[in-house]
């Protein structure tokens, strides 16, 4: 049955309803806690197994050892090589935020955050370098 | 597996030792023929065995041969039959099946562009999917085409 103006009732109802759209930068959207956005790195946990690097579909993540120059310690006459320490560099322009690295990490050193406002005017600012505390300490020295 | 067997038998009866048919799993049939009779087989399947639908055509490279896989379906019992046509890379001639099923045209153009298979009788038209300026003898899905290989070709238009 063809009838003109079939939608008018909904239109008039909507005149007295609150609109559903918001003005984005002023009103923030509600982000679910399950949302996958920027990747966070816990340097103390990383063991440098490189599973994340191997499985990254976008070739965005790099795990770099920072303490090649650290000297081995001697305990009871035995030389124990220093525990290897790593930093993580993620290129946010390449990252597709699939979260495969967080899933594959055997020690849960990587995790997803809900920080989605990552756009930037500068390409260099998109390279997210998450340093190991050792690096900053050795620089101070 | 009754329907699968039926199709298998009728195909083997018609083409005897020129065809290898295998029912690997439920509703899936795999057949292998030489490229010079693939057109006849498909024609037989559409005319006699009530096949109606071509899902797609896949091209692959296996050693010295191209393998062209026709994924065909009969609506009646919805069996997906993958017909494998084998043709040598040195002389990649294949007869078009657009006369049997016109919907094959884009898939065959893809074979021409991506593998360099010479599809005989393909209706004229635009290239797909490569742009018009792409060199005629470069076929992106060939295994021997690597980054270094590609850099030998002159820049478009020069």
């Amino acid at each position, binding site marked *: *049955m*063809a*009838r*003109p*103006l*079939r939608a008018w009732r*909904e239109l008039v109802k909507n005149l007295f309803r609150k609109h*559903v759209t918001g003005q984005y930068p002023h009103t923030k959207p509600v982000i*679910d806690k*399950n*949302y*996958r956005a920027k990747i966070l790195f816990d340097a103390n946990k990383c063991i440098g197994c490189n599973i994340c690097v191997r*499985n*990254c*579909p*976008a070739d965005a993540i790099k795990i770099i050892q920072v303490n090649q120059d650290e000297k081995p310690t001697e305990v009871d006459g035995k030389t124990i090589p220093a525990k290897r320490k790593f930093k993580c560099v993620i290129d946010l322009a390449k990252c*597709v935020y*699939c*979260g*495969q690295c967080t*899933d*594959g990490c055997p020690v849960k050193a990587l995790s997803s955050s809900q920080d989605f406002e990552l756009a930037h005017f500068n390409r260099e600012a998109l390279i997210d370098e998450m340093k190991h505390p050792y690096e900053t300490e050795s620089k101070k020295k | 597996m009754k329907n699968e067997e039926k199709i298998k038998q009728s195909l083997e009866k018609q083409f005897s030792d020129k065809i290898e048919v295998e029912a690997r799993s439920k*509703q899936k049939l795999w057949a292998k023929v030489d490229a010079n009779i693939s057109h006849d087989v498909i024609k037989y399947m559409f005319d006699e065995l009530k096949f*109606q*639908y071509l*899902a*797609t055509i*896949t*091209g*692959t*490279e296996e050693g010295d041969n191209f393998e062209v*896989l026709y994924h065909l379906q009969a*609506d009646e019992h*919805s069996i*997906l039959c*993958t017909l494998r046509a084998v043709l040598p890379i040195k002389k990649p001639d294949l007869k078009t099946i657009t006369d049997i*099923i*016109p*919907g*094959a*045209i*884009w*898939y065959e153009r893809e074979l021409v562009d991506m593998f360099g298979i010479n599809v005989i009788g393909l209706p004229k038209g*635009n*290239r*797909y*999917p*490569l*742009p018009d300026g792409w060199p005629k003898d470069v076929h*992106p*899905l060939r295994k021997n085409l690597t*980054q*270094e290989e*590609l*850099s030998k*070709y*002159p*820049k*478009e*238009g020069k």
Partner: protein
Amino acid sequence: MPKITVPLGPQHPALKEPGSFMLSLEGEEIKDAVLRLGYNHRGVEKAAEARNYVQNIYLLERVCGICSHAHATAYVHNVEEIAQLEVPQRAKAIRMIVGELERLHSHLLWLGVAGHEIGFDTLFMYSWRDRELVLDALEEISGNRVHYSMNSIGGVRRDMSNEQIKKVLGILKTLEKRIKYYITVGTEESTILARTQGVGVLPKDEALKRCATGPQGRASGVDRDVRRDNPYLLYDKVDFKVITQDSCDVFGRLVVRALEMVESCKILKQVLENMPSGDIAVKAPIKIGPGEAVNRYEAPRGEDIHYLKANGTDVPARVKVRAPTLANFESVAYMLEGDTLADAPLIIAAIDPCFSCTDRMSLVQTGTGKSGIMSFKELRAYSIEEYKKKGIDFSKL
């Protein structure tokens, strides 16, 4: 009357994605349509041969933004078939839930786009508003709004909690009401009927000849649905109807999609209310094969077919993707001829085209052998050079 050639695309407000239709017009009537595709070829199939099986899930998911789950699932089915993995029931149920939610969101999106093509922006705004509910549900289940990344080889990555199940059921209740409203508006509003009935007619025999799939084929009476014919996941355990129409026009496609949304809600309810318990994934090997598999998946836009050949290493030997839009393209030229220019955008939109699926770029420049990301300056220089060949000089701009 002189003939005018009007380009519809590659850049045109009616087509959000690049595809070119050269329409020869006599007055308002289309006499001839020439199609050109491939503007969006990204070489996904070639790229897949250089990545391992895990990376490929995410690569193939990005074949399309709307039916991302469809492509990933079809691929994962292939890998699982070759590796002979038994996927747990709960994982299958979750894959199905995401798949059907995806169908709802895709059909609502289509309804909005179709409304916009015929200038009915109100329908566009309403259906996209309601689509937001589906996207919110998907965001909560999977962690993203469009690229869900739910699949892993051998199962799914995230489990669903009971609260999430309840929430999705609540959303379905609202959606069912809204879908009913769209069905009344879509089938009764006289201007919509005037624009869709008898437009873009594709008779059944032509649809069969041109291999039309999905809602496009079903609206022409081609009774074909992979979910019923070759049941995958748990589709053999749920009760649903395959919607077909005999009107063969855009109106039929609208009705098919609208009623399919009702069926999707039905399927979702059955699955959500009888969720199987157990694990959500089994462990998958890194090296797969050798072997080959072909699998189909009923994506929202039609049948999606994937072929995979494995050679025993951790990278596949050949991945073939055929997205539903490519199968439906052959019928577009047929439908356009004889209709008017005003109908062209709607006819093209009625197949729910997705050109990026169709043309599946890693940028490789011939001559320099360089690959990677082009900067804005390089791209500009390249374009200026291209246009110089055509006799237009943009270098002074």
